[in-house]
């Protein structure tokens, strides 16, 4: 497959991809290191909590989204990284045994103001489980090299 440049992500492009099974062991491992709140790492405490069982750290869900983006879109692209994320919302808890997938839509594409060999692409992502329940939404920007210099 041809390497993906800024031009390959026009506004309106939609991709659906990913199939990430979330295990309880992974949830506990991630949260033990980065988010050791009881409802992420302690089964008994989590059962008593209003979440009613262990749930993934929201940062873990975001990181799993990142992995799906890398595998599907970024690894074979001219991505130079991201300046940031405009908005992230955790819509519902992610629980052990769920399988996450991504819907990605390009919502904005602009050439870099000063460096005409690159451009910014803003994506809107929706992460859902196997039943279609929405778990996370995010809007963020990636900087790609352009295939041809100058304005389009």
């Amino acid at each position, binding site marked *: 497959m041809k390497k993906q440049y800024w031009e390959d992500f026009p506004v309106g492009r939609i991709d659906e991809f990913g199939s990430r099974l979330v295990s309880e062991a992974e949830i506990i491992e991630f949260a033990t290191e980065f988010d050791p709140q009881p409802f992420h790492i302690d089964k008994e405490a989590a059962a008593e909590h209003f979440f009613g069982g262990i749930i993934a*750290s*929201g940062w*873990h869900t975001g990181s799993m989204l990142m*992995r799906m983006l890398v595998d599907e879109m970024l690894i074979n692209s001219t991505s130079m990284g991201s300046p*940031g*994320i*405009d*908005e992230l919302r955790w819509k519902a808890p992610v629980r052990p045994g769920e399988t996450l997938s991504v819907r990605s839509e390009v919502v904005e594409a602009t050439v870099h103001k000063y460096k005409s060999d690159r451009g910014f692409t803003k994506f809107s992502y929706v992460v859902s489980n196997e039943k279609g329940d929405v778990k996370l939404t995010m809007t963020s920007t990636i900087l790609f090299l352009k295939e041809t210099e100058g304005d389009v």
Partner: protein
Amino acid sequence: MATEYFEDVQIGTVREFGSKLVSKDEIIKFATKFDPQPFHIDEVAAADSIYEGIIASGWHTASMTMRMMVDHMVSSRAGLGSPGWNNLRWYKPVRPGDILSVRSEVIDKKRSVSRPTMGTIFGTIQVFNKNSEMVMSFESLGMVLAKTTGKE
């Protein structure tokens, strides 16, 4: 430490905490799982990239920040979780040997209209390296339990 409820949270409160040394092994371990782009996991490729050396995944920096927040902030607050956050920006790469610390500030708070026994705390979270350069920031949203409905 006394539990901090919605009424106890003071707008303008600043907290500075954390001292997280970032190792190369940790950077590679995290990115291998969640963000396997060459400039995060491959020293040779990273040296040739625009970053001129291995840098941490932005999600790793965010996750390390969450850990510092859990250790120093979250445990004292009557927190009910977070719906997400806004405007996360990565300003400078985080490199092996960096030491990260956090500055948090309470910007605003609003009692929930529909559920007055809780409210939302609006904050800014800034992350610095050992040279006091800001590497990341975001606008946090945290839901917190109230002691009263505010109408008694």
